[in-house]
């Protein structure tokens, strides 16, 4: 990869990463704030991320802020929270055309200032965030949580995770839970906001054509934050493994059942088998060449989609498919059979070679997508040592070293914990 990733520690809680590339029409700035995933953090941080885009002291309404973005050649501002393992990340991204295409030379500094205004200068009074904005966003968030059942496929996956990790922080839904949100007052929220702003680590990543641009001094000038101590988080321990998978059936008005099977793998990104696990899951359920697709769709016509999705921070694997509820036992049996088969026999070397090639290509191809690249970069930085530098070649070599025996070892470590089914019949917990 031709990109140079430079890291500058501006001070102890502000890191700057710059990635210079000339191929994009745009520049992209990402600001990531790392927090610990707890029910409180999930709810509070989500609400904060919504309120901050409702206006700032400088752009004092949602409309004025939006008009400013439009007028700056359609800048795109994203303010959201994401869950990565046991972390809850507040992220802000701003994308805008690179000034080499336009006759507008101030856009970069304007963008930094705009992000700073959004994150640090929200509309607030002595009692906290402005009351009407607070109430609207709180109500909207509660409505959104009630409405999340509308997207059946992702709802089924979320519910599987919630049941499977019902005693761990990781089971927490990314946008919080209704009860916690309901109890938030605007003073509480503002206090929490202050804690986040004054006591968290900030990583700011900038990607684009940064030639001849004093990025560091621009950041220091337009994006200054106080140099305080911040909280370091330890990764959450996994609960002991349940010996027998639990089955949870939940009812919804739905024609096609959504099945999700949850496995603890205990292979997270720090494990020597991590790269092997990524390849193993791809062979198992990553797309139409996968074992599960062949068996469930091609051979048995039991589903239209089937996927295997893992969480690298948590060491978890989820297999999902849209099926007829009556086929549930048949489908889960087939999934177990496929896994059992992969525990006994070795995957063909040729299949592994192709999968490695595909993985290497997709890592290279990440550089074609600025948003994905930035998220990938930040994902790699998460939880690593402070002075760890992301080396793409090192990541690629990790994949190239994987052997078929490693895949077998990963399959042996897959431990089924949960069979979750969203269906059109009655609720039952077995």
């Amino acid at each position: 990869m031709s990109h140079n990733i430079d890291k500058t520690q501006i001070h102890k809680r502000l890191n700057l990463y710059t990635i210079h590339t000339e191929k994009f029409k745009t520049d992209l700035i990402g600001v990531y704030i790392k927090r610990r995933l707890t029910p409180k953090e999930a709810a509070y941080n989500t609400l904060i991320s919504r309120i901050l885009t409702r206006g700032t002291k400088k752009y004092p309404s949602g409309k004025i802020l939006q008009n400013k973005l439009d007028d700056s050649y359609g800048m795109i501002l994203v303010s959201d929270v994401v869950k990565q393992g046991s972390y809850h990340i507040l992220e802000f991204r701003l994308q805008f055309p690179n000034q080499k295409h336009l006759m507008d030379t101030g856009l970069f500094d304007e963008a930094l200032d705009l992000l700073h205004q959004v994150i640090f200068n929200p509309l607030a009074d002595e009692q906290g965030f402005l009351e009407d904005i607070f109430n609207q966003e709180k109500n909207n968030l509660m409505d959104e949580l009630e409405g999340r059942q509308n997207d059946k496929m992702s709802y089924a996956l979320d519910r599987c995770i919630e049941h499977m990790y019902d005693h761990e922080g990781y089971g927490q839904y990314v946008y919080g839970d209704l009860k916690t949100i309901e109890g938030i007052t605007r003073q509480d929220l503002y206090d929490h906001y202050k804690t986040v702003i004054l006591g968290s680590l900030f990583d700011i990543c900038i990607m684009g054509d940064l030639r001849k641009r004093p990025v560091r001094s621009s950041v220091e000038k337009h994006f200054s934050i106080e140099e305080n101590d911040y909280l370091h988080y330890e990764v959450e321990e996994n609960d002991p493994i349940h010996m027998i998978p639990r089955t949870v059936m939940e009812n919804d008005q739905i024609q096609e059942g959504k099945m999700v099977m949850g496995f603890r793998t205990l292979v997270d990104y720090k494990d020597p088998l991590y790269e092997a696990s990524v390849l193993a899951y791809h062979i198992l359920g990553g797309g139409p060449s996968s074992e599960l697709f062949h068996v469930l769709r091609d051979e048995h016509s039991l589903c239209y989609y089937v996927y295997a999705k893992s969480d690298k921070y948590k060491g978890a694997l989820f297999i999902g498919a849209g099926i007829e509820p009556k086929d549930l036992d048949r489908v889960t049996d087939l999934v177990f059979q496929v896994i059992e088969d992969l525990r006994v026999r070795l995957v063909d070397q040729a299949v592994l070679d192709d999968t490695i090639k595909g993985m290497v290509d997709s890592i290279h191809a990440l550089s074609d997508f600025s948003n994905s690249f930035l998220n990938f970069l930040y994902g790699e930085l998460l939880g690593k040592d402070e002075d760890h530098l992301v080396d793409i070649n090192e990541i690629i070599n990790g994949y190239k070293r994987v052997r078929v025996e490693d895949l077998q070892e990963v399959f042996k470590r897959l431990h089924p914990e949960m069979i979750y089914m969203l269906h059109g019949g009655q609720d039952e917990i077995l």
Partner: protein
Amino acid sequence: MKYYNALLDESLVKKEYDNGFQVYVLPKKGYTKKHAYFATEYGALYNEYIEDGQVVKLPLGMAHFLEHKLFDDKQESVFDKFERMGASVNAYTNYFSTCYTFSTVHNFDQSLEALIDLVQNLHITDESVEKEKAVIARELAMYDDQPQWQAFKNMLTGLYHHHPVKYDVGGTQESIQTITRAQLERVYQSFYAPDRMLIFVVGDLDPEHVFKRVEAYLSDEFMSRKPAPRVILPEKPKAIVRSFYQEDLDVKMPIFYLGIKDRTFYDDPKKRLLKGIASKILADLLFGKGSDFYEKHYKSGAINGTFSCDYAYGRTFGYTAMSAECKNPHNLKALIQEEIDLKLREGLNKKDFERIKKKMIGRHLSSFNSTQFIASTFMSYYMKGIELFDYLETLEQLDFETVEERFKSHYDLDYSTVSIVK
């Protein structure tokens, strides 16, 4: 032929053959991935055509069914074959077209050969056709379980009497059961014809090289297929079917759709594009996140962040659709009407028009970051008879008066329908 656009700093190279087949290459320096699309201008809307003096009527969902069957395994699974080369293959059917595509970092030539091989041959059996029905039935059921989709479909059903735009691209559970192998083979021969097909490639590639490879891989049999039959375009009646429909699906948050039916159509693709852009600007200007309406009603709690408004169109249909997930969807239409009346009285603001135009120029420029986006934009415009670079030129030419006129003629809620899923 080579086109260049200075603002985008991109060029597009086109080659056209005597039988009407076209190949386009957009070279993109420094990009790792290369994408190729092999498409036919045959989609879900085209269910009637004239062949040998006879009108042929097809079951709904034919184009999509055929797309599935092109993937029928020959010696090895098509997906495996591409994966072995490090490429990933995919296909989609929409109203206007069926596209087969792959993306890859390495082995571009080999993958292109495989793609062309895939599309220019059809091998099916009665048994495989029957088997596919179960898979497609699952796919349709999957969409039917999305209440958003259901609400949207009910809106279309409220706008259109017979126009096939109101049906799922995949057809209906009933229509797919009637599809036969003989029909699939006949349709394939008729519409997978050079004069209705094209190849589009984007990536770090030399156009001349691509043209040579394409010529080497296309079979004589394919290049000598007879011209595609004439499609009977669906009718364009102005009246709506119903002004309101509600379906009870026991959703937690009701879903609202309001569609305004387009009654103005142009045969000239450039005029159609101008109308399309003016309509998209209006959607944003009147109801976008930076509009008076949005600010006012977000504050009052009538709408939330899910509210959106956009315009979609083809040769024979068009509609502005507003949607929201909110607790009280029933009074939204009145608020929308109120806003339209207000703007009709006070007039639109030219500054808003200029702001949105600037935003659209910036967004279009930004979209050229993504090779995949370029490809899908190219395809969607091509299928409407518009060349890729026409967009910016037309956008820059568009004046405020055209948008004002379009506002007065299009935003009439007598031609609208509301769909609610509760």
